[in-house]
């Protein structure tokens, strides 16, 4: 049976101890008052705003766009002409997700190249609104092999890239 009196006696023994309380009071009194923290907080907020502005400006710049595309823009090839990937002849028609038709892609000069063999890059034109990329392998030294579901990464033209990677 629960006996409140016994419980009260037990609780009365629970305590911080004089030394501990003294230590805590001493530590607390050393803490700065809240009014001293305000300037620090304001400075931190100002720094955060400046950082946000800088990041926005960087994101809008060509270098920023390039970095963002390099890091984040990934497209999926939804279909690929199965007869086309030949070393010397043929045309590769790739249908890419509608997202490929964004402004960066339309204005960019892009190339296909095999991952890991960048020197074999093949310049071609940008698909534009259609989202279709035609690759004439007659002009290519690259061997393009792919299949439906191949992952394609879009990077701005200056770095000359429209990588494609083997399907995972």
């Amino acid at each position: 049976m629960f006996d409140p009196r016994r419980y009260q006696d037990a609780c009365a023994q629970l305590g911080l101890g004089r030394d501990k309380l003294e230590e805590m009071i001493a530590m607390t009194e050393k803490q700065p008052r809240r009014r001293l923290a305000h300037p620090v907080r304001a400075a931190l907020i100002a720094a955060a705003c400046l950082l946000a502005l800088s990041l926005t400006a960087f994101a809008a710049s060509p270098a920023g766009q390039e970095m963002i595309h390099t890091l984040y823009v990934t497209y999926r090839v939804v279909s690929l002409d199965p007869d086309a990937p030949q070393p010397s002849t043929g045309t590769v028609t790739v249908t890419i997700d509608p997202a490929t038709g964004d402004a960066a892609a339309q204005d960019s000069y892009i190339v296909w190249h095999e991952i890991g063999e960048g020197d074999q890059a093949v310049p071609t034109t940008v698909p534009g609104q259609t989202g279709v990329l035609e690759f004439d392998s007659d002009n290519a030294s690259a061997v393009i092999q792919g299949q439906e579901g191949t992952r394609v990464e879009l990077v701005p033209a200056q770095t000359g890239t429209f990588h494609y990677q083997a399907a995972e």
Partner: protein
Amino acid sequence: MTDDTFERLARAYGDTVFRVAYHALGNRMDAEDVVQGVLLKLYRADKPFASDDHAKHWLLRVTVNDCRKLLRAPWRGRTFPLEDFDGPVTPPEDHSDVLSAVMALPPKYRMCVYLYYYEECSVREVAQALHAKESTVQTWLQRARQLLKRALDEEKEETRDV
């Protein structure tokens, strides 16, 4: 708040804050951390307290809130070896079974039992401190008593068998 008022309230209610935190968190180290945080909030509190009772109830609420924050913290699940743990200030042997039984209750019941039976708060005051309805507090108390009765009866039977 003046340093004198702070020190007087800290001395008067430091142990109370510790006991509330200890009941909520179940170990001394976390409870001491909470006491430190609550005392800091008291030191920085701009509001004047109408009475010591007012200050005490403010401290109880702040302590309960801080304990809840700590219980929700993602690093709460950390463990440490028993050897590193200096343990609670243990109550006398003849009372430890009651305290152990209370500490084995779920946290909301423990807090409820502590505030009601030790701090002698009314159901209304307990409800305010725990941010719950009075009827909920009454239910918690009733369930806690049932659980305690069962636990203590079982313990008594085990002792008798041995």
